[in-house]
C-alpha cells in the first residue's frame, strides 16, 4: 500500500512539474512576441556640471503611440465594429465587404469585431485598438453614436467613423448619415403599381430615423401610385435586427393576411422576410424588398420574388474618409448617403414587369436630379402620409438639419439626440 501511494504521489508531482514547464514555455514564447502596444522610451544621461562633483541626471521620456502622420491609406490600421455578422447579406455584409474591398486594394490592416450589441460592448475592442495604435475605428450603426462620440473625445488622433450617425461633438468624428427615404419612395411607387391586392406589409427594426425614413418613404410611394386605397401593416419588432425567425413569421402572416408586397428594413429582418417570400407559392406572385445590398448581384436565386433592393454604397464614403484622413484633411468630415448624392440607388427586381421597372427608374432619376424632392409634410386634410405607429416620433413635418461643422442637428427631430454629451471645444 505504501508503495502504490508513493508511486501515486510521484506521478502527480511529475505531472504538475510538466504542466508548469509547459506553461512557462508558453509564457516565454508569448513574451518573445510582444504585442505592439504603447512603448515608453526612457533616455537617461548623466552630466557633470562645472568642476564640482555634482551630477545632473536628465531623463527624457517619449511615449510612442501608433499614428505618426501617414500619407498612404495602405499604412493605416482600421477597425470596424459590426452589430451582427456578414451572414445577413444586408447591413453587416455590405459594410464588411466595402471595407474588405478597400483592404484588398490598398493593403491596410483590418480587424473586425462582430456581434457588438451596444455602445458599451463596442468600447472594449475600440479601446483595444486605440492601445494598439490604430488610426480609424468604424462604428457601424446608429446605436454606437454616443460611444463613437465618447471614444472620439478620449482619442483625438483617431478618426471615429460613425455610420448612420448625425451628431458630431468632436472634430474627429466622421459622420456618415443615412437617408433611405428616397429609396423607400421609389420602391413604394413600384410596389403600388405592381400589387394586385393593394395590401402591403412592412417589417422593421428599431425606431431609428434611417429605418422609419425608409418605411415612410415606402408608404408615401405606395400612396403615390396605388390605384386603390392600400391596406398597410407596419411592424417594428424587438431585437429585430437579430430576430430572423420573428421576421419570417411576421412576413408570412402578412402574406397570409393578403399582402403581396412586403418591405424589409435590413439586417436579420431581410433574411427572414426574403425567406418568407421564397416560401410562398409562385402564383399569385408575391414580392419582397431588401436594403443595403444589391441582391440581384449577390443572390440571383431571390430574383423571382424581389421587388427591388435599396442599394447603399459604403465603399465610396469609407474610401473618402480614409483618403481625407491620409491627407490630413478630415476634421468635421461627413458624407450624406442618400439618393440625391448618388450613394443610394434602387435596383429593381429583374422579374418586375418592364413598365414598372421603367417608371421606377424614371422616378429615381427625377429625385437624383432634384426634380422631385421627398418630404413628409402633412397633407392639407390633416392626415399625414406617415403610418408609422410609434409613440416616440411624430411623422408630420419632420425636419432634421445636420450641421456640417459638427454639433447637434436642428429641426423638430433634434430632441431625439438630447442624451448625447455636450459639444467640446476641441479644435
Amino acid at each position: 500500500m505504501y508503495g502504490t501511494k508513493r508511486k501515486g504521489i510521484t506521478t502527480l508531482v511529475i505531472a504538475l512539474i510538466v504542466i508548469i514547464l509547459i506553461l512557462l514555455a508558453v509564457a516565454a514564447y508569448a513574451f518573445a512576441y510582444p504585442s505592439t502596444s504603447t512603448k515608453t522610451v526612457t533616455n537617461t544621461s548623466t552630466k557633470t556640471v562645472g568642476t564640482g562633483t555634482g551630477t545632473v541626471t536628465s531623463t527624457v521620456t517619449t511615449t510612442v503611440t501608433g499614428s505618426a502622420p501617414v500619407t498612404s491609406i495602405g499604412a493605416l490600421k482600421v477597425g470596424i465594429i459590426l452589430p451582427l455578422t456578414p451572414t445577413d447579406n444586408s447591413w453587416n455584409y455590405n459594410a464588411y465587404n466595402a471595407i474588405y474591398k478597400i483592404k484588398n486594394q490598398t493593403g491596410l490592416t483590418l480587424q473586425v469585431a462582430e456581434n457588438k450589441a451596444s455602445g458599451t460592448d463596442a468600447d472594449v475592442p475600440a479601446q483595444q485598438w486605440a492601445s494598439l495604435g490604430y488610426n480609424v475605428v468604424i462604428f457601424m450603426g446608429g446605436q454606437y453614436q454616443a460611444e463613437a462620440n465618447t471614444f472620439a473625445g478620449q482619442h483625438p488622433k483617431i478618426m471615429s467613423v460613425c455610420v448612420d450617425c448625425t451628431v458630431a461633438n468632436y472634430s474627429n468624428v466622421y459622420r456618415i448619415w443615412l437617408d433611405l427615404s428616397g429609396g423607400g419612395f421609389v420602391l413604394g411607387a413600384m410596389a403600388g403599381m405592381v400589387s394586385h391586392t393593394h395590401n402591403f406589409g412592412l417589417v422593421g427594426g428599431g425606431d431609428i430615423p434611417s429605418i422609419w425614413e425608409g418605411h415612410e418613404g415606402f408608404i408615401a410611394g405606395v400612396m403615390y401610385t396605388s390605384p386603390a386605397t392600400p391596406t398597410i401593416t407596419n411592424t417594428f419588432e424587438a431585437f429585430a435586427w437579430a430576430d430572423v425567425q420573428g421576421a419570417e413569421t411576421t412576413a408570412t402572416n402578412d402574406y397570409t393576411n393578403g399582402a403581396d408586397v412586403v418591405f424589409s428594413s435590413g439586417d436579420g429582418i431581410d433574411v427572414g422576410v426574403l425567406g418568407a417570400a421564397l416560401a410562398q407559392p409562385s402564383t399569385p406572385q408575391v414580392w419582397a424588398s431588401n436594403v443595403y445590398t444589391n441582391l440581384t448581384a449577390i443572390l440571383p436565386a431571390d430574383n423571382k420574388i424581389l421587388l427591388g433592393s435599396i442599394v447603399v454604397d459604403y465603399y465610396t464614403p469609407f474610401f473618402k474618409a480614409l483618403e481625407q484622413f491620409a491627407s490630413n484633411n478630415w476634421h468635421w468630415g461627413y458624407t450624406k448617403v442618400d439618393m440625391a448624392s448618388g450613394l443610394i440607388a434602387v435596383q429593381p427586381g429583374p422579374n418586375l414587369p418592364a413598365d414598372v421597372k421603367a417608371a421606377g427608374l424614371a422616378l429615381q432619376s427625377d429625385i437624383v436630379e432634384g426634380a422631385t424632392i421627398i418630404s413628409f409634410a402633412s397633407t392639407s386634410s390633416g392626415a399625414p402620409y406617415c403610418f408609422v405607429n410609434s409613440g416616440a416620433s411624430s411623422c408630420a413635418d419632420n425636419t432634421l438639419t445636420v450641421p456640417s461643422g459638427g454639433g447637434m442637428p436642428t429641426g423638430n427631430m433634434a430632441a431625439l439626440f438630447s442624451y448625447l454629451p455636450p459639444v467640446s471645444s476641441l479644435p
Partner: protein
Amino acid sequence: MRANTQGLRWLRATAYNVLAIGLGILAGLLVVMYAGGNLGVALSSLFLNPIELAGGSKQIFVRFVLFYTMGMGVGLALKAGLWNIGAQGQLLIGMVMVFVVYGFLAFLPWPVLYVAMILGAALGGLLWIAVPTILRVKFGANEIVVTILLNVVAINFAFFMLSGPIKSAGTALGFPHSVELPAKFQIPSIVSSVPITYAVPATIAMGIILYLLVERTPFRVRANTVGESHETAKYAGISIPRVMTVTMLTAGALAGLAGATYLMGYRYELDIGSFSTNYGLVAIICALVGRKHMLGIGIASFFFAYMTIGAESMALSANVTTYVVFAMEGIMMFGILLGNYLTERKYAV
C-alpha cells in the same frame, strides 16, 4: 494520514483542472491557427492583452466580481443539489431594479438611495428566484425547467422596462437604453489611477463572510447532506425545505447583487448589450472549478475573468469570431468534469 490523503486529493483535482483549462486553451489556439492566425500574436494576446491593453485590467476585475458573486450563489445552491440555471435572468432583473429604484425612489437622500439601489437589485434577484424556489419546495417542480423559462421572460421583461418605465428620456433611437448613472451613483475606484473599484474588496469580503458562514459551520454539512441524499437528510432530522429555500434565495439575491455591482461599477447604463451574455453559464463553470467552495470559487472566478478576456482578445486579433470562446469554455467544462471523475475514482470508497 487522512489529512495527507485529503491534501493529495485536492492537489490531484486541481492538477486535472489545470489540464482541462489547458486543453480548452489549446483548442482555441488550434482554431486560431486554422483560421490563419499567427501563433505568437495569438499567445501574446491571450496571456498579455488583458493586462497590457487599455481597459483590459479594469475588465478583469469587473468580470471577477461578476463571476465570483454569481458563482457563490450557484455553488451554494449546488451544495444542496439545486441547479441555478437562472442566474442570467436574475442578473438582468437585478440590473433593471437598480434603475427602477433610481427612477422611482429618487426623493431619497443620496446615501440612502445608493444603498437602496444595491439592495433593490439583490431583492430583484431574490424575487425572481422565489417563484422557482416555491415551486420546487412546495410542489417539487424541477427548478431547472422553471428557471430556464424565467430567463427568457426576464429578457423580454427587461426590454419592456427599458422601452418604457426606465427608458432614458432623450432616446428614441430604437435601441433602448436607460439613463447613465452620474458619478455619485457609481462605485468609485479605490485609487483613481488604478481601475479597481470598491466592489472588488467588497466582493472578497463577502466571499470571506460566506466562507465563514457556510464552510465553517454545520450548515455546510446540512447542505451537503441534502444535496447527496434526501433520505439521509430526513433521517438526520435536517429540514430539507429550509436548506433548499435558504440556498436558492441566497443564490438569487447574489445574482441580482452582481447586476448592481456590474452596472454601478462598470457599465453605468443598461442597454440591450447586457441581454445576450452568457455570464450565468460561466458562473456555473466557476462554481464547478471551485468545487463549490466559497473561496475556491473566487480563485476560479479570477482565473476565468482573465481567461475570457484574453480569449476574446485573441479571437479579435486573429479575426476569428469571438464565439470560439464559448467552445473553449465548453471544452474546459468537460475537462473539469472528467478530472473530477478521475479524482473521485482514485479516492472512491
